């Protein structure tokens, strides 16, 4: 295959402490590298504080990375100046977690949907409207939604509007940041189906962020598991669920409650809390909660290494694969 569509190299982000708290910088991301091929969907999974949203936003340069390189379709995003960046942005769009916060309460759906076209100066009024209505149709919402306000819609419908907004600019790449985690179970599946359908139909490349491994399984081709700002494991979806190799991935999978009431036993429960990203453990960041940690884990940051084709893990133990 040729050069990847999106290529992230050594992405690091430290949040400086705010003016009043003089503590250490929060190390949100440490040395993150991954690629996404055109048309691929990559899942980014991790618990709170793992840095998944920071990656998602850095990729669109909504957050300035501390260091590292992000190449999008051959263009280095991190070094673009404001003008070219603004033009670049029509190709890459973001879908947000909270369907209530992500739509301006003071704009009609039509205004929300045409905002991007407006900013980018695409088309005239009529053309913009046409494009917005097309997007509405794509997310299976009635066209009469155009003149309504967001508050009139349910969470699932709002999330569809959020998706429609991302689509109006006809992007090639979408970051979907926990698009279903705020929704009811019966709605979650609808949205995932919709996203999957759109992705296939429009040939979108997508970075799909979630805290829930069960959610990303259907939509993702590859899954990246994050913990405390570092990549723990990368694997094709099927491989990851079938043969998780990192102790953290295993624990995460095990922690998901099963619908089978008889499967209660044998669940592996991790001890302790997630450490603060402001003060992460030395060596392997997971070692403080890892059931199979060795003394050596404290000494060195385990490199991300391939165990089989496309399957990488950051763990020094080979014996638990």
């Amino acid at each position, binding site marked *: 295959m040729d050069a990847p569509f999106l290529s992230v190299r050594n992405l690091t982000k430290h949040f400086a402490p705010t003016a009043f708290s003089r503590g250490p910088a929060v190390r949100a991301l440490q040395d993150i590298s991954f690629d996404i091929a055109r048309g691929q969907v990559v899942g980014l999974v991790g*618990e*709170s504080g793992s840095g998944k949203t920071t990656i998602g936003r850095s990729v669109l340069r909504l957050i300035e990375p501390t260091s590292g390189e992000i190449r999008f379709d051959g263009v280095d995003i991190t070094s673009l100046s404001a003008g070219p960046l603004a033009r670049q942005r029509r190709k890459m769009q973001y879908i947000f977690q909270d369907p209530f916060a992500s739509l301006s309460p003071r704009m009609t759906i039509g205004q929300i949907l045409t905002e991007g076209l407006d900013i980018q100066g695409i088309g005239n009024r009529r053309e913009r409207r046409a494009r917005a209505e097309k997007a509405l149709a794509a997310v299976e919402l009635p066209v009469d939604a155009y003149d309504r306000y967001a508050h009139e819609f*349910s*969470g*699932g*419908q709002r999330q569809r509007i959020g998706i429609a907004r991302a689509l109006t600019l006809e992007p090639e790449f979408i970051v979907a940041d926990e698009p279903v985690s705020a929704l*009811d*179970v*019966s*709605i*979650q*599946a*609808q949205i*995932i*189906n919709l996203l*999957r*359908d759109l992705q296939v139909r429009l040939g979108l490349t997508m970075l799909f962020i979630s*805290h*829930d*491994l*069960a*959610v990303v*399984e*259907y*939509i993702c081709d590859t899954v990246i598991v994050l913990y405390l700002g570092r990549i723990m494991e990368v694997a094709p*979806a*099927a491989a990851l*669920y*079938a043969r998780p190799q990192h102790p953290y991935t295993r*624990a*995460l*999978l*095990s*922690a*998901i*409650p*099963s*619908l*089978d*009431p*008889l*499967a*209660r036993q044998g*669940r592996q*429960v*991790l*001890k302790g*809390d*997630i450490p603060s990203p402001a003060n992460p453990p030395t060596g392997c960041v997971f070692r403080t*909660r890892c059931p199979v940690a060795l003394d050596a884990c404290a000494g060195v940051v385990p490199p991300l290494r391939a165990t089989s084709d496309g399957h990488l893990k950051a763990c020094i133990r080979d014996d638990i694969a």
Partner: protein
Amino acid sequence: MDAPILSISGLRAVFRIPGRDIAAVQDVDLVIGSGETVALVGESGSGKSVTSLSIIGLLPKKIGRIAEGSIALRRRDGTVTELTGLDPESLRKVRGNDIGMVFQEPMTSLNPVYSIGEQIAEPIRIHLGKSHRDAATDAVRLLAQVGIPDPDRRARQYPHELSGGMRQRATIAMALSCDPTLLIADEPTTALDVTIQAQILDLLAALQAQRGMGILFVTHNLGVVAEIADRVAVMYAGRIVESGPVSEVFTRPRHPYTAGLMRSVPRLGQATTLKAAGTPLPTIAGNVPSLALLPKGCSFAPRCALAVDACRTAVPPLFAATSTQQSRCLRWEDL
């Protein structure tokens, strides 16, 4: 056999909106025995939280009230008290004493300006009449019981100094401080990460094994229900549509809504197969209806593939599908 810890029958709670009352919860019957965990499960707006707030009498005073029904609680001393219609002062003496409550957001449900220990000690002082010092000692002991390391130091800390999981452990300690007969846990793990959720679920199970209290576990997460509950009641649009032992309901749902929910929940390892086959994930069509605009008849009928005309004329009664399982579906037998 002792009376059940909690026995709700015919509960109807209404909200007042300009012009009229709308029922947030109706026809709710629920029984919890001692040492039993009953899960109340449903999506947002289904009335599960209203039910739990009705029990402890904390519906928003201005707009919400219990319109009819009975809620009987067996108290620590074995007497059974009818909670509806109880005067506020007597009800207050029940709250935090015979009923402990754990809320969803451990950050916001703890008072930011008081130390953890102080907040745990408070109900002990109020209900058990202990001195400040004794209550403080009890608080530390409770913190240790809910698995907080170094409880002495933690008791002196403030909520913001604790992690989310710790805070939820602290609220559990607070709810259990007077050794209640009933613990109401309203989405206690929703705000937590999965690995922490697993810890809290284990903790609740362990505490129940120790103390034998009844637990009303309110959640929208079916997986959690399977983990923790003995029995489950599924709510939809203010009514219980199906109830029964978890093992029965989850293996053989007798209501199309329950069945749909079960199908919608992603199961590890299965989605890959579906994707490979090009099949979409199973869903329930449509949206949750507004309580103000409920359809006539079965509320689920508009989204139901099995709905027949009869479904749209009258609200179906609860049918006893088995000796322990009930369903509010005319076609329960067809499932």
